């Protein structure tokens, strides 16, 4: 140990303050990261985590903020992201920065090419990429295209890319947001392995169980300030305390209670089968039958790729797949849902899991996003009644408590939780009887999640029915009256509230998989 105590701290950020045109995004934040630890950074969306990391990686250049950044014992003044990468600080963003049409090897060395005099040495590139892939435990040909591998594997490629840059301090922004449980756990194991090899990590995550599992310390940020840093060397950090610090209030119950008055069956799907849109011989949904009763929250559980989204979208106006067969009944009468409009007219709405790409017109304002699916309701013939439209949108904005400067605000500039409320408002305004919610709380913070749950309960109390698709088991268990488990495009189990536990859901999945393989 040369250098003694000084080197125990790899990074120290002191008194960082950053303002955006008068608004303090960070207010005197100090962060100390020890060598060879996994340091978790948590906070609600907009708390300032990403801003802090952008300062660390040089995205916001020195001089743009006040305060100091000490790395490896010397003060840094990064002018760009290149400066920080030179010193071994690498950030992996939530939206992966890989080029889909290039190979794994090309992506790993992008901007860092193995070349002599500007000419790429392909042998060295591919063989070194192979070594790096082995290091991160990814069994793929370095020549495979990025577009042909899944998100979980892409995340590993990003880490390999960081290793190629001789990373010492790795920053991961929500690395497991798009991964299933198995992939997530693999990724977290890799972080622990890298830690042994001398890579320090800063992990930004909303998933408290993951943080509790791998991190050595946890720093909680709220409203641009550090609230506290907790030690987690024993892996026994108090998760409730983290939540309390994050939201600044005690959340007594993560899932609000509701009185359920479940009525007769309102929606019935029988023997629903759908084929893949491109490979027309492949069944994506196979003979699914399910029913939903009035005033009931029905969950759809399953691993990623089980076909839950595909099932929902294929029912909603055949928005997914080809060669649909099967029957859909509402209130006992068969209905035809050949188009989205037909579905909306029949009182079925679908809230997408991907609000940015499928849910919102980001460049338009709150008003027109809310009214988009209900224009005939605010129009006389083909002509929109602006007064009615404004009234409807304002009513939704107030009722859903969308925090915006007004219904004229462009939705792109809203936070994730408020964007989600806009999409939800759009569908509630269309007055559906059955609302399919696909990952309604993905990527939004704890406080906004609670509000979404409250909205679900309110809709239920108004006699509507909800199908809830979620990858977060506690959410399904906390919210649903009944859960269907989907496995490989089929229903592998149905559990009522008493029998719904994580273990039972996993049993359904595992038994079914075994059953199909035998």
């Amino acid at each position, binding site marked *: 140990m040369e250098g003694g105590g000084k080197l125990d701290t790899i990074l120290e950020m002191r008194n960082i303050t950053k303002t955006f045109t008068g608004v303090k995004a960070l207010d005197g934040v100090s962060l100390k990261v020890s060598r060879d630890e996994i340091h978790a950074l948590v906070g609600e969306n907009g708390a300032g985590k990403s801003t802090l990391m952008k300062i660390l990686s040089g995205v916001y250049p020195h001089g743009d903020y006040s305060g100091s950044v000490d790395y490896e014992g010397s003060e840094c003044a990064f002018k760009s992201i290149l400066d920080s990468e030179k010193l071994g600080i690498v950030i992996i963003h939530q939206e992966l920065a890989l080029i889909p049409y290039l190979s794994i090897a090309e992506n790993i060395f992008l901007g860092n090419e193995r070349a002599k005099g500007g000419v790429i040495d392909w042998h060295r590139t591919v063989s070194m990429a192979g070594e790096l892939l082995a290091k991160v435990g990814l069994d793929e040909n370095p020549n495979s295209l990025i577009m042909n591998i899944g998100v979980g594997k892409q995340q590993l490629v990003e880490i390999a890319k960081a290793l190629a840059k001789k990373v010492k301090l790795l920053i991961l922004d929500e690395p497991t947001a798009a991964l299933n449980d198995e992939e997530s756990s693999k990724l977290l194991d890799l972080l622990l392995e890298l830690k042994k090899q001398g890579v320090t990590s800063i992990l930004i995550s909303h998933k408290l169980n993951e943080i509790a599992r791998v991190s050595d310390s946890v720093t909680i940020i709220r409203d641009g300030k550090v609230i506290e840093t907790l030690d987690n060397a024993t892996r026994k950090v108090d998760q409730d305390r983290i939540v309390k610090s994050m939201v600044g209030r005690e959340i007594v119950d993560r899932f609000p209670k509701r009185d359920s008055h479940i009525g007769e069956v309102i929606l019935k799907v029988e023997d629903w089968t759908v084929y893949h849109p491109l490979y027309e011989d492949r069944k994506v949904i196979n003979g699914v039958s399910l029913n939903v009763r009035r005033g009931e929250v029905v969950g759809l559980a399953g691993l990623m790729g089980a076909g839950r989204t595909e099932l929902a979208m294929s029912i909603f106006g055949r928005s997914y797949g080809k060669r649909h067969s099967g029957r859909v009944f509402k209130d006992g009468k068969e209905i035809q849902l050949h*188009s989205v409009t037909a579905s909306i007219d029949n009182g079925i709405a679908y809230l997408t899991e991907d609000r940015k790409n499928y849910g919102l017109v980001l460049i338009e304002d709150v008003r027109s996003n809310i009214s*988009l699916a209900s224009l005939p309701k605010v129009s006389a013939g083909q002509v929109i009644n602006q007064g009615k439209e404004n009234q409807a949108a304002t009513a939704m904005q107030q009722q859903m408590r969308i925090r915006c400067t007004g219904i004229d605000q462009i939705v792109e500039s809203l936070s994730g939780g408020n964007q989600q409320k806009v999409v939800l408002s759009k569908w509630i305004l269309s007055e559906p009887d059955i609302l399919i919610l696909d990952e309604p709380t993905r990527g939004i913070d704890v406080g906004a999640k609670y509000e979404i749950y409250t909205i679900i309960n309110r809709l239920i109390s108004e006699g509507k029915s909800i199908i809830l698709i979620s990858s977060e088991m506690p959410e399904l268990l906390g919210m649903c009256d009944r859960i269907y488990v989907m496995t490989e495009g089929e229903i592998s189990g149905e559990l009522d509230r008493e029998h719904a536990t994580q273990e039972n859901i996993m049993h359904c999945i595992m038994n079914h998989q075994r059953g199909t393989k035998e």
Partner: protein
Amino acid sequence: MSVIGRLFKNNIRQYGMVIALAFIMGLFQITTEGIMFKPMNVTNLVLQNSYVLILAIGMLLIIITGGIDLSVGSVAAFVGAVSAVLMVDHNMSVMNAMLIGILIGALVGAFHGYFIAFLRIPAFIVTLAGMLIFRGFTMAMLQGQTKAPFAKSFQALAAGYLPFMDLRWGSLNVIALAAGVLVSIILAAVMLHSRRTKRKYHFEVVPLWLDIAKIAVIMAAINLLTYEFAGYNGLPIILVILVALILIYTFVTERTIAGRHIYALGGNEKAARLSGVKTDMVKFWVYVNMGVLSAIAGLIVAGRLNAATPKAGTGFELDAIGACFIGGASTSGGIGTVIGTIVGGFVMAVLNNGMSIMGVSVDWQQSIKGFVLLGAVCFDFYTKSRSQSK
């Protein structure tokens, strides 16, 4: 921040281009020693550019959906040629020939729309093909020659004036003056009514004096313009057609479900489809609409030249596209207004006109227009990135 400051900032793009137009006109008024605002010149400005503006309106709808139409010049020439053959060679009546021309335009638009909307072929490629196809048809149909002359009534469409040209008050045409007064009264009434409606629904309105100032400026501009027309031959028929199209399309884009669907499609096609917008049909119809407007432009060009020529309409597509982008439309779709496009079109038109009067050679005119287009789009990016960082 003060109301005016905020208002200006929110609408800097729109006002910016209007101010730029006023500035350019003022500049040319000085450099051309007063020729710019001579009644005859103002009238000519409208007559010369009407067809490009008509094309630009259709082009705007397409650009909002995220597409492009390169074929409009060729389609205009083709429709002009067909109607010329019908009228000159087959002695068909003007009305019938025009209706057939417009029908052909719609069919050509449907042809493009079919490939773009239903077969998902990129618009750039489909309309590039259309540009070649219909230019070829035009040349084949005219066999490389010019077809002329047309009946007086057909020429009047592009070069005629409203009746009672000689009804004058002093040297001024009474019809034009009256139209100016009438239009500005209607406009003021409409604006005040919309203000009242907003208040009824308790929405924020700008201070009354500001609205009144705005109305006063617009009234002054309208009456100044009609005064100019009154000093020459009165109101050109084509101006009436143009104003009607501007009003109709402004209404359609801003106040109807169809318009909202066009913007939503351009802003995010997938989200629009999942919200019940029939995206394929919307795309198809904007190209049919473009075909119809191309046909109208083609008839006007033929009427103005009093001949159908194989080279008619060459380069129109670029003027129309340029007008949209100068007028604030976004290359990635979802953004743009009819009135902005018209202002953009006039910026280009005034530049052409002013430089021609000054005797700037055609080569230089091209370059200067290029720089203006580039400058306008840069300005757009600058204001957008600034408003986003806030």
